[in-house]
Structure formats: structure tokens, C-alpha cells
């Protein structure tokens, strides 16, 4: 089946079965490999993207269910003020080790700060505990989110 999807503001037509998860459309059909495969069962968060600004696990999101929702991926993080702040905080705090899970971590953090500019520790845990980091960068992720929130100043 042909599907029209809008990824990072660009329309694409893809010809796949309707049950094909968005993850594989992004990675294998459109060649956007920033979004990662980790588990295929929404257990690890590596594949997190935004659908209309909400964090979604693209590995269990069938392309047929997306309709006209706007898809945003890690490749577009720098185009958003919040996304760019998070990327900078990630680098300033030296969060990243192997880096494989970090696309998903940043997408989850971005969605959190977009709706909650000054999250508490518990808000951060709620938003981030679905994202596994095998390198164990959790402490730094928490600090980087707070750093990004602080750099947002009083705007939020």
C-alpha cells in the first residue's frame, strides 16, 4: 500500500504493508538511520520519535496508524530551540558513551521539556525510565536535562 507520511516537514510516499512499523520505514525505506532499533517491542526506547510532538516508540507504531500526524526524528532536533538546547546540554555534560540509545533519549527528553520546561526529578524519571542505556549514562542524562531546562531561563 502507498502511504503519505510527513517526516521533519518533508512529505514522503512509501509503498509498504500497513502493519510495517514506522521505525523500518524511516531506517530502511527512507534511509534515515538516526532512529535506532533496540528491541522491537517498545521496551527500550531507542526508536523514540515524535508524532505531533508526543514521544512514540516507532518500532511498534504501524505506518498505517499514523495518518496525517507530523513525524519528527532526531535528525530535526537542531531545528527546534528545545531540541538544540538538549543536544548542547548532552555535549556539555558529556552524557554520551557508545551513543546508540542517545537518539531515543534525546527525543524523550525533548518531548518532556517541550511540555514541561522545568521538570522535577520525578517528572524526569517518569519521562525517561522507558529509555534504556546499557552504558549507564542515567546520572548524566538527568543532569543534562536540568541543564537544558536552566538554559531555557524564565521563558517557560
Amino acid at each position: 500500500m502507498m502511504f503519505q507520511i510527513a517526516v521533519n516537514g518533508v512529505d514522503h510516499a512509501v509503498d509498504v504493508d500497513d502493519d510495517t512499523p514506522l521505525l523500518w520505514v524511516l531506517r530502511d525505506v527512507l534511509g534515515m538511520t538516526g532512529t535506532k532499533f533496540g528491541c522491537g517491542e517498545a521496551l527500550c526506547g531507542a526508536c523514540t520519535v515524535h508524532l505531533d510532538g508526543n514521544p512514540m516508540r516507532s518500532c511498534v507504531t504501524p505506518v498505517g496508524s499514523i495518518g496525517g500526524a507530523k513525524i519528527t526524528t532526531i535528525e530535526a532536533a537542531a531545528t527546534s530551540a528545545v531540541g538544540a538546547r538538549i543536544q548542547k546540554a548532552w555535549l556539555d555534560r558529556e552524557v554520551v558513551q557508545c551513543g546508540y540509545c542517545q537518539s531515543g533519549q534525546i527525543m524523550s527528553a525533548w518531548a518532556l521539556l517541550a511540555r514541561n520546561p522545568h521538570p522535577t526529578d520525578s517528572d524526569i524519571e517518569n519521562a525517561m525510565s522507558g529509555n534504556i542505556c546499557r552504558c549507564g549514562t542515567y546520572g548524566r542524562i538527568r543532569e543534562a536535562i536540568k541543564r537544558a531546562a536552566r538554559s531555557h531561563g524564565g521563558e517557560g
Partner: protein
Amino acid sequence: MLVDRADLSRRRFLEIGVVTGGLMLSLKLPLARASAAIDPESLAPNAFIRIQHDGQIVLTMPYVEMGQGTYTSIPMLIAEELEVDLKQVRLEHAPPNAKLYGNPIFGGIQCTGGSTSIRAAWLPLREAGAVARTMLISAAAQRWHVDPATCRAQSGEVFHEASGSKIKYGEIAAAAAGLPVPKNVPLKSPADFKLIGTPAKRLDTPAKVNGTAVFGIDVRLPGMKIATLAQSPVFGGRVTSVDDTVARSVKGVRQIIRLDDAVAVVADHFFAAKKGLAALAVEWDDGPHANLTTKEVVRELEQATLQPGAVAQNIGNVTEAMMSAAKKVEATYQVPFLAHATMEPMNCTVHVHKDSCEVWVGNQAIARAQEAAATVTGLPPDKVVVHNHLIGGGFGRRLEIDGVTRAVQIGRHVEGPVKVVWTREEDIRHDMYRPLFFDRISAALDRKGMPLAWNHRFAGSSVLARWFPPAFDKGLDSDTTDGAINLAYALPNVHVEYVHVEPPGIPTAFWRSVGPSHNVFVVESFIDELAAAAGQDPVAYRSSLLDKSPRAKAVLALAAEKAGWGRPMANRTGRGVSVQSAFGGYMAQVAEVEVSENGAVRVRRVVCAVDCGVVVNPDTVRAQIEGAIIFGITAALYGEITLKSGRVEQGNFDTYRMLRMDEAPTIEVHIVRSSEEPGGMGEPGTSAIMPAVANGIYAATGKRLRKLPIDPSQLKST
């Protein structure tokens, strides 16, 4: 980022030519010298550095990046001695060439593992930089007709203060290349270090926060197909029949491949391949291990510890000392099989041509990856090109080449390039596991409670016996016993035996913190038992045994002080301690543990003191310890691979659980200033935390758990 990927495949070929045809310097390995480099304008005095006429400094990087920061710390070594800024160094992966890029700590095998990169590179890479710097200074001095001793190098230029002359490295690279390669070049004194010891920003991370970093799984090639696979659910089983009628009708499925012990579906994209695989009707002959259970493995190992093993260490006479004991303490310990569960599932891309083969993979041992592809295809190794990539988690998994072998077996049947991607379930169920060990340990105490004798015997798999057979000799290897022998503690009589037993049909492999992942848990738990039997404080007891090991004693004291050891804690909370001498350094950890009424364990805070000798990149040291502690807590609380009917029972993160952010402790790392040789930092944090957690549970509940993972049902309050 420094790695220029766009033209990597082309460059690799060229690189081999440059390296093998250019000016060579023998550091530890006998390297051939030839007359002409491909770029005669460049200075390539050794296998690691090339200074191009345009001033670009290229480091041919012998160690892979899997998150541990080598892409920053190794360039720091070169840049320090070469007197260039870190950002002037561009990095290329070394091609498979064990003669040039073999790891001296790993018997010359070209690999990254065992927390060896900094230790292995510490001298050769600094020497490589110093040699190049010396040649550049000599060439500049010749040009200016001055004494080289009156010139100095800084930020990629040579200066002659008296005349005010200066020249960029690139401009004299060609002249320097014509000079003899000097021997015994002095290295900088640590007091003059500008980079080493400073917290350099990681060079590999900008591409990892914007989606552009290319891990092995991200490789894309024109015309590439995607495959996924199902291997025999029981190790050693075979395919008996495949009905692919339904699978062939799945949209996007291109090809079904049947191997002796696996089936693969090749498709336009991963999901089509996965759907096709699910639609296959495969029958298996489970083979000889069809009924295997973990219980059986444990029973066999337990029995094996009743028989003598190979003597790994003997000091004094344990048997006699036991007879004069005022008190005896005996225990058995057990640690499980563990999967690596790297976040990037196993994958490998191959393109098998008639007379050559290309492999794209993130692997910790790429010369072995090349050999593996050569073996499957029957091609000579020099017809196999391996493109190494960033690694989405190694932890020892990618020291193995089973995935390359499998991908090439599949790729041989495919026209054009194919990327083989394991599902998470396939990744977990066909991992190669940290071995299960069974330990029997006893000690004799004198009237004051101090140890007179230490008697330890354990049974399990030897990874090295398979991975590097020459390292296994007379029933022993250096890894399996690491952390069980040569203890930092002063023990008058010691006897340690290892009984080599390979579990049937279960592949075992290195896993973050390797031998110590097992031994340090046993030793540091048991010394805690002795302290308890002696009625003494666990820190004071250890400390009194560490007079001959001042570095261990010092980290113990520091960790205890920073943790507030001895301060009262609430009911069902406690502090556990561990001390470790491993990977060329010393570490002590104190874990604050809380045990709920229903037995759930939470590690709230970990304080770590480390003396790892000279620190190259302090923030990387901290990051590695933080991550290693999370890795170790995950294993201590949740990690266990079990078998039933010959099948691995776990498959994804629901059944093979990972620590998550809401469970992660705060971690404090205190680094001791030291001028000793650098120690490895990728792993020690993992082995040291496991006993600290178990000892903390004892402090919180009075229950001594001698088997990992922790069983909460034994910790319920009654």
C-alpha cells in the same frame, strides 16, 4: 567528527598501501621499511601517524570506539607528544593488520578489550608522536641551518626563537620523511603534559546527538537488501525442513536461505524479513542438548568442585593451617550465565563477490572478522575488506566473530550487498555468555578472627581456552583466575584451584570485567563473611590485611571516608564495601543499599575511590566508572540467562531486565592522584560493585546472599 566516512572504503585500500609501503618504524613489532609512500609529500614515520603536506595529521587508530572514549584518549597521547592541538588530529580506523595494529597485551591480536587500550597504547603511541615531532624539528632545523636543540614544537609548528623563524608541520613533512627515523626518542616528562590529565571533550559525541553517527547497523549501500535470521533454538541443533510457501508471498520478501543450522529471510526492509521469517515453517533437529537445563549445568559444576583442579596459586600450607584454626568458615557461591545485551543488536553487512568480499561491521577484533569472512568464502584474507564502524555497545560481545561468519554464510547466497540484522530475541538467545561458575571456599581464622588460611576452588568455562588457546596451559589461564589469586590481602596460607568444565553446548565469552566479574564477587563477599565471623567492622578488617598493598589500603580509606562509613543508617538499609586490585589499578566502592519489606533491593548511592595510575582523560575515567557500576548493579539484581529444554528462556528486555533511570543510584567517583602506569578503566567498576551490593544487603538485613542475581524472595521481612 574526525572520522571521514564518505570515502572510507576507498581510503582503506589506500591506507593499507600507505602504511605498508611507507616509512615504517619498529616500536615493538618488526615492521618492513620500504622506499616510497603513495603520498611522497607526507611524513609517515610509523604505522600510526601520517602528517600530510596540507598539515592534516592523521592517526590510524588501532583501537575501536564503543563508548569508552578511546577516540579521544588515544589521540590525546599522540597529540601530547607531537605537540599539536587535539582538534588537529583526524582519525581513521586501522585496517585489519595484526602485525601493525596487534594489541601487545592481547598476544598481538588486533583487538579492543580487557580494559587494555590505554595500557597498551601508553608507550607506543606516545613514542610514535615523539618520533614524528623529533623528525619535524630536525627537518626544520636543517632548513634553517640551526641546531635542532634550539628549536621547539608547538601547536603544529616548529619555532626557532633566536631568528623568529617558524614553519608549519605540513610544509616540512616531505623533508622530514627523508630523514632517518630516530631511535630512543625521549618522552615528555609528566610535569610538562598539557593535554594528558585534562578533561578533554569527547571527539566522537557530536555525531551521536544528531543522528549522523554511523554504527554498523546504519550502513547503507546501493541495492542493499536486509535479512534477519533464526538460528537453531538449541545450540548444536540443525534444520530438518523448511516450508516457505507463505513466507514467499509476504510483500518485500526476496529470498529464503536455508543453512545447516539456521534460516534467513532476505527482503527489501527489516520488517518484511521479520514477517517472512515468522511465516516460515521450520522444523529443527534439536540435537544432543535438547533437554539441557541450567540446573543440570549447576549440578555438574557443583560436583566438579568436589574433585581437585589445577592449582592456580599456593602459598604456605593451607591443610596444616586449617588444623590450627580457632574458627572455620565455609561457603559456596554461584554466579549465572549473562548475556551482553548491547543496545545495538548484532548485525553485519556483507557483499560477497566472486573473487573478493566486503564486510561492514562494528567489531572489537577486526583482523579476526577478516579471517572469519575469508574462512567462509575460501578467499585469501587480503581479498576481504573489513570496514569497521562505531560500536553500539561492545562489553566483550564484539570480540567474537560468530556474527560475521553467519552474515557471510548468508551473503554468499545473495546477489549484491545484504545487511543481516538480529532481532533482540535472536541476539539474546544466541549470545555467547559470561560463564556460570560454582565456587567452594573456606577459611581458617585465628583467635583474634584474622585469617590463617584461605582455600578456594571453583569450576566453570575458560573463555580464553577457546578464544586464544595458547593462553590456556596446564588447566589454567590468566583471565579465569584473575581476581581469585594474587589478592591484595596479606593471607599467610592460600590455596586456589580451578576446575575447567565447559558446559555442554553453551558458548561462553568475555563479558565486561571478565574474570573479576566472578572472582571479585566471591572474594569480596567471603572476606566480608570473615569480618562478620570475627565480629569486626568490614572496612577495618580489610584495612588490617592491606599493609602490603598501600594503594589498595588508600582507596579503601578514601571510599569509606567519602561514604561516611560508620554513620548510622535506617532500618533495612546498609552499606556494603569492596576493594579490588584488577586491570592495573585499585578501586574501592561503598554501596548504600535499601531493602524493602517485600525484598526488593534498591541501590541508593555508590561512592567509588580509584587509583588508576596516571589519568589520561579524567572525565572519561568518571564516565566509565559510572557506567560500569550501572552495568554491575544490573547484573547483580537482575542478570541471569537460564536454559530449559536446551533453549535460552530470556529473549528481550522484559525477561532480561536492565536497570533504568528511576532505579539508578547517585554515583560519586573520587580519583587518587598518581604517577603510576595507567590502569584500564572500562571494566573495574562492574566487578567491584557486585560484592558491594551483596555486602550492603547483608548490612541491611543480616542475610548473606551467595548467589547472583539477588533473589528478593529471600529478603522479605518476616
